């Protein structure tokens, strides 16, 4: 089966259940909004119109305006962009670095392996929020910092999975055969082991996306995330919360966006896991 055919088959399996369909639709909408934000917004998301603050939904402002008269719909769309950027960079870098370190751990001697596992344990023992509080106190809040913090805290997840998968495959017959014909360890790791462990890692990454979105929103909500005036779902909720008595729309709209996006990525991640997990296949799912 070619790679293309395999991917098509996986997608067909994802779309075979209602969860997968709903998740995919939501993801397409969220990712589409994030990519094409400048094309789909109706206003500059940072443009202020103080005299028109807290205006309700109208033809000019589909979801109304916030406490500074900014267009809520446009800010929501740009909020998706921030969430996706943080998720993409944080998970991408955690996936790459974590996988390489995990594979390295599996290849090292017992002492080296233990040392790397201790590093993973140390990182995992820091709750991301506490780590964020400490780091932001030193460097000040920024999107890049949020991304880096999330990447560091997620990295051990990928490292552990990559290590476990590599340990399982290390003595597989086809790997032994490669070794016998003189393939270098790096070549074996990158050309033969990595493609075989990529599936579970991608599933893990997709399941981590809603976690990252929530962490970014949470940090921004408590003022440790993106800097104003940049729109993030977390800052939208915070701004709405501060002026809840003036208008409930900002909080409701931003919370709904966050909840729907989280749900969509969770449903998609679960469908993807079911689609690529061979054990579930054997169980005649």
């Amino acid at each position, binding site marked *: 089966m070619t790679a293309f055919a395999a991917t098509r088959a996986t997608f067909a399996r994802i779309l075979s259940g209602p969860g997968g369909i709903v998740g995919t639709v939501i993801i397409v909408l969220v990712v589409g909004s994030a990519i094409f934000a400048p094309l789909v917004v109706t206003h500059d998301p940072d443009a*202020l119109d*103080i005299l028109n603050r807290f205006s309700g939904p109208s033809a000019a402002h589909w979801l109304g305006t916030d*406490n500074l008269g900014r267009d809520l719909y446009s800010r929501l769309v740009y909020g998706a962009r921030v969430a996706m950027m943080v998720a993409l960079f944080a998970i991408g870098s955690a996936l790459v670095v974590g996988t390489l370190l995990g594979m390295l751990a599996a290849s090292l001697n017992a002492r080296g392996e233990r040392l790397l596992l201790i590093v993973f344990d140390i990182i995992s023992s820091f709750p991301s929020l506490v780590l964020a509080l400490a780091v932001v106190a030193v460097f000040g809040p920024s999107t890049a910092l949020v991304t880096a913090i999330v990447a560091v805290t997620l990295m051990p997840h990928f490292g552990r999975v990559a290590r476990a998968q590599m340990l399982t495959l290390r003595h597989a017959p086809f790997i032994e055969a490669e070794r016998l014909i003189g393939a270098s360890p790096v070549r074996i790791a990158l050309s033969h082991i990595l493609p075989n462990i990529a599936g579970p890692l991608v599933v893990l990454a997709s399941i981590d996306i809603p976690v990252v979105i929530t962490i970014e929103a949470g940090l921004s909500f408590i003022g440790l995330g993106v800097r104003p*005036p940049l729109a993030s779902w977390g800052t939208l909720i915070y701004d709405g*919360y501060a*002026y*809840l008595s003036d208008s409930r729309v900002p909080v409701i709209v931003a919370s709904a966006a966050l909840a729907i996006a989280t749900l969509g990525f969770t449903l998609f991640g679960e469908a993807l896991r079911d689609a690529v997990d061979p054990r579930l296949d054997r169980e005649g799912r």
Partner: protein
Amino acid sequence: MDHFMSRRAFVGASAAALTLAMGASSSVSAQPKSTITVRIDRDITALDPAFRGGPHDANVVRAVFQRLAALKVDGSGLELDAAAELKQVDPTLIEFTLKPGQMFTDGFGEMTAEDVKFSFERFAVAPVDGKVSPYKADWAGLTEVEVTGTYTGRIKLSAPNAGLMTIAIGDCSGCIVSKKAVLERGAEHNTHPVGSGAYQVASVEKQRGAVLRRNPDYKGARPAFEEIRVNFIQDPKTTELALRSGELDFAVLPPSIAEPMRGASGLSVENYPGLAYIWLGINMQKAPFTDVRVRQAVRLALDVDQILLAGFNGKAPRLNALVMPPVLGYWKDAPIYKRNVAEARRLLAEAGQTSIKTRITILNQPAYQSMALVARALLQEVGISAEVDVQEGGTYWDAGKGEAGKNIDMFLMRFNGKLDPSFLMQWFTSSQIGLWNWQRFASPEYDQLAQQAIRELDPAKRAEIAIKAQQEMDKSAAFVWLTNDVAYVVRRTSVKPAFLPGAIDWQLDKFTPA
């Protein structure tokens, strides 16, 4: 014996029990509360009067320590407190006689004139361990407190100090500490203060606040509440929820949070003209703001009314100079700067600045964030690109101090005021650079006027001096005055608070059941 009750007997007994229970509950609810909870918006930093951090500390300090005489609740004058007699012999000499038998808590003995001497002189004349109080200006001109007897003494000044009675003697800087306790406890006195006032500090917890208990040995009027919990809650919205849920009895809040609570069951909302001053400050010693034309351009680029609408829902009055009404020295003809984009651009071009990148440092409060974002948008139109730097309390309050202060660009600041022009002016002298003068405004003329305002006892002349000082500030263009705030007091209807005009300075010992 039949243990079963007939239906009629059961209904009767139930009704009787219900009536009794209701009676009991109403008698419980009719009892006045013995504990109340009030909110402070900054964490307690130091409860030693000489090193208090601000009103959040001062409001506790006032309840714990006695003064020779204390300000009356309406701020109209002084009433004797620890002193049996307090006499202004001449402009530079005050004589006092203490009431005998006033005991410090924790077994630190009776208050004597030696304690008074120690308490006042430590501000600047004889600092303990070389630590000069940030409030030393309150005691400007003090040369010595001469002890003439166990309970008597003379306060000697080198020059008259117009605000001495109201700012120093009658308020926190006039609090009398136990010399023995301060020397024995050292830094610990900031969290375990020893006073002789109506309340004593039962506990202080970081990020939580303090618990005050009635001082059984206090010789003055017995305070109404057995216990006062002073809770630190930074977020105004959380404060609102605590008030609505009954966890809090008293708080001062911004209009946007307080207004919607009007009509809430069991709560009362009252607003008073503020005595705080809020402004956008510009660091005069940092390029490109070293050029007065750039500062003038900033001032003309901003629209104060728009900024206030964003920050205070338009409920706060506009301030055009440092001194607000009704404080002596209010400059009623202060210039009201209107937004003038063309002139701002011209000034920038003249200064050779066409594109400036800068930063507005603010405290992480929604009102400041809204104001800063409006300022940012307005500045952008004249070619000044400003980043809004939101800081958490601890970091923010250090941002303009010491070496870090040299790097600050612009900032939104709020200072609490008092009913005295010298108190308002003291933070902008050259000696305050690196402390509270974040603009790094260094004007010898202003410094001189600030000194004169302290020494001048004639109110008319003093007002004239204060206005001249404000004109110096105006010339610098380092201050864009925004508002003197509006104090929204939210309280449980069962509690009657006591505070000085402006609702910044509370007298917790005079809080009573309504």
